[in-house]
């Protein structure tokens, strides 16, 4: 098959393959490691602040998101994501990065038209579909119980 006769098919031989297996492994290990760190925070909080485990877990999630925002501001989170892929983007830390990166990016257009309006540009879809899914599951749960 030549490039001239069927470009879209033939060109695939020239494109470097995405290493899906390695990427999945990295995402699994890094994503798991992040969750382990969050778990450690949760245990720490519930032990030292004597709060219920659920509150401690919520505090732990907030800590992870705060860390993600700090690393985003330092310009490191995108490098981390390039390595870890879904392990870095699919967690709540990744969601924090989506909001923080957009907020930073649009700071140059001001606080209202820039930061506030554009903040959800990268992370907005996660909120919309998160809420929709929560409602659907809620309705399903109501019908089944």
């Amino acid at each position, binding site marked *: 098959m030549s490039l001239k006769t069927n470009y879209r098919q033939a060109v695939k031989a*020239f494109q470097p393959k995405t290493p899906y297996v390695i990427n999945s492994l990295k995402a699994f290990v890094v994503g798991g490691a992040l969750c382990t760190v969050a778990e450690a925070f949760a245990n720490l909080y519930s032990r030292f602040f004597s709060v219920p485990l659920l509150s401690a877990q919520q505090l732990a999630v907030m800590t992870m998101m705060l860390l993600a925002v700090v690393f985003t501001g330092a310009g490191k989170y995108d490098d981390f*994501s390039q390595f870890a892929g879904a392990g870095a983007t699919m967690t709540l830390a990744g969601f924090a*990065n989506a909001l923080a990166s957009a907020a930073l990016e649009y700071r140059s257009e001001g606080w209202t038209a820039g930061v506030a309006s554009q903040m959800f540009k990268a992370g907005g879809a996660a909120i919309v579909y998160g809420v929709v899914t929560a409602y659907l599951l809620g309705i399903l749960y109501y019908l089944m119980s």
Partner: protein
Amino acid sequence: MKLAGKQTWVFEHDIYIQATGTAVGPLEADGPLRESFDIAHDDLYCGEKTWELAERRLMQEAIGVCLQKGNISFSDIDIFLAGDLLNQNVTANYVARTVPAPFLCMFGACATSMQTIAVGAALIDGGFARTVLAATSSHNATAERQFRYPTELGVQKPKTATFTVTGAGAAVMGRKRGRWRITAATIGKVIDAGTANPFDMGSAMAPAAASTIEQHFIDLGTSPADYDLIVTGDLSRVGSVIVRQLLAESGYNVTDNYNDCGLMIYRPDQNVFAGGSGCACCAVVTYGHLLKEMERGALQKIFVVATGALLSPTMMQQKQSIPAVAHGVVMEAVKEER
């Protein structure tokens, strides 16, 4: 007749590049061509408040150093041709406020550099201008935010992605004898090979580059061996292999005397995926590095083919494919008069 064959302009008069100027960002200055650039910034903001202002400053500085090196004043410029990648060509249009000459804005995506050189040379050849100023720019962060994502958003990019060059290049052309002569230009057709992946512009642009290069050989009756170097603008590691394969299928063997500006500007270990891209890629490598190589005598005759992917985020979201265009210009070294 100045039109040779279908798409090639052969200039009747002697048209020269009299001076060039280049300004680049930190990563480019850290690359293998650092000595070739006139101005290098160690900060991506280039001392400005926003990325867009930084890009504007780069173009302004490239023009300034170009005029200074050529000892040319703004009053000598009959027309200014410029373009960039941003919406409404804001870099070029805002820079034009400071250039007291008639202005034509040009857009050919990353093919803009050779588009301005070709049109500028044609205006001079046709007698519509004596001296033409051409400039183009791109900035990694302005391109990222317009075409892709916020710069700090964590996204895993594929190996086919390219890295937009931060920089600007300017050139002054005229009838007055200079060190480089512009002898011909081949204007490309828009070719859409049907690919739709904005993270693989090499595959999208290679057919347009091959079309322009092949047509150039046909129009002038030349062959690859007639050029010391055939150089494409920003096909990168992926597209540069494809374009050679496409030309080989048409019977043109382009191997040793071929290179791509996107492969020359960075070191492989600079984390730039498949290589450099953007309007500035072809501009700073050609105006900075390649013309110096010609001056040094390492190259006599080169064919610079700037390649542009004519996409927009809206068209990509509407699942449209990527049209591409490539414009080529032949530059020859002028021997010193004894």
